[in-house]
């Protein structure tokens, strides 16, 4: 997370992009309370490490740390059963359907996806990282990320179609 900490010197730049870190936790967990717990735990740990002068030099380590905490937090939860989800081609009217969604609904939908698709979707739709950074953070290959995003779009489109069916023109 290049904007939260300035780099190898470990001097914190504070504030910037922490909202995105919270949103990432929220998308990964689909639950505001759990997201806050992970978010606070991540930052508390970061604060302690900064005090000891042990901040990692690698980029995006806060997101990487938060991701593992999210995965850890949901390890004991009920896991979604692997099932064939409906898939629809992305439609032109999708933006208007998405516009009717509540952010909470989207977070619940993304958090229900199996990992690493969940991480891929959460990181991608934060619009914070380029694809190479996502590959690094989620430990994926390009074709895997591509497949997860492409499937994710079609599955989300199918869900949108089910949630907001198109009314036939009279």
């Amino acid at each position, binding site marked *: 997370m290049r904007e939260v900490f300035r780099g190898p010197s470990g001097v914190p730049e504070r504030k910037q992009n922490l909202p995105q870190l919270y949103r990432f936790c929220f998308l990964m967990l689909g639950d505001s309370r759990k997201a806050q717990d992970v978010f606070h735990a991540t*930052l508390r740990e970061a604060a302690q490490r*900064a*005090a000891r002068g042990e901040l990692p030099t690698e980029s995006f380590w806060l997101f990487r740390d938060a991701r593992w905490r999210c995965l850890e937090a949901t390890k004991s939860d009920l896991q979604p059963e692997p099932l064939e989800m409906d898939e629809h081609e992305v439609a*032109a009217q*999708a*933006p208007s359907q998405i516009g009717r969604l509540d952010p909470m609904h989207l977070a619940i939908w993304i958090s229900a996806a199996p990992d690493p698709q969940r991480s891929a979707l959460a990181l991608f739709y934060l619009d914070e990282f380029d694809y*190479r950074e996502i590959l690094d953070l989620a430990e994926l290959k390009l*074709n895997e990320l591509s497949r997860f995003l492409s499937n994710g779009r079609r599955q989300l489109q199918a869900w949108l179609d089910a949630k907001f069916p198109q009314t036939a023109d009279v």
Partner: protein
Amino acid sequence: MKLVSAMRRQRSLLNCAPISARQLADRAMRSAISRADDSVEFTDQQNFDSAVARLVRLIPIPAESAEWFSEKDLVPASRWTWKKMLRNPAVLATSIAVAVIAGVFVFNFVSHLNDFPGSATARKLLGIAASARPVMLDPVNAEAGTLSDLFFMKHGLEHYDVPAQFADFATIGCRVFEDEESRRIAQIWVSEKRMQFFLFPAERDSKTGAVLRFPGWRYVRQEGWTGAVTEHSGVCFMAAIRGRDKDLESYLSKPADK
């Protein structure tokens, strides 16, 4: 086969196409996007992604978490200490460089603090004294004070007089030579503590030609040698000894009108 693989990679890149232009990572991605820019499928994908990203940005931040953003010291700044700062390689390198430069300045300043007209020549002559051997000089068995007549009569050197403090010392040898500026220098070797005396023209003002005088005795040091220099009648006399100022002080404190 290569074409299929290239198309597959392009398809993969398009699926990961950034939502904002600011995430346009590399040339391969830019090229894939520019090829697909007109396709309806890609336009729908971009609109879809933008709409989802807009929705993500609407995720509210709970007040409890927002406190982290407003707190000035969200992550306590790593304690700033001199020790830590000095360990920074950049600071360390700069400090050493500054210290060396400062050292050179101080050394130059201190070494030129006691400069006087003729001090540069005197230092050069101390170098000569350090490398001189008795065989280089003509053997002379006389008191140093009597050599001024020899210098005048044999070499035409006027006022090349040895001061009274050193006039009684027995001489081992002497010579007259020219330095690189064709100034005529008289060198005398005496048995007393293997001291060497030098007589050389005093420095003159480059415009007026007037002798640049200085009162009393001045010290110069070079490579473990010390010289005590005085000027009289346009000629400088230097007593050089391997040692320090105090080795010469006892001679200089003798009354001159002995």
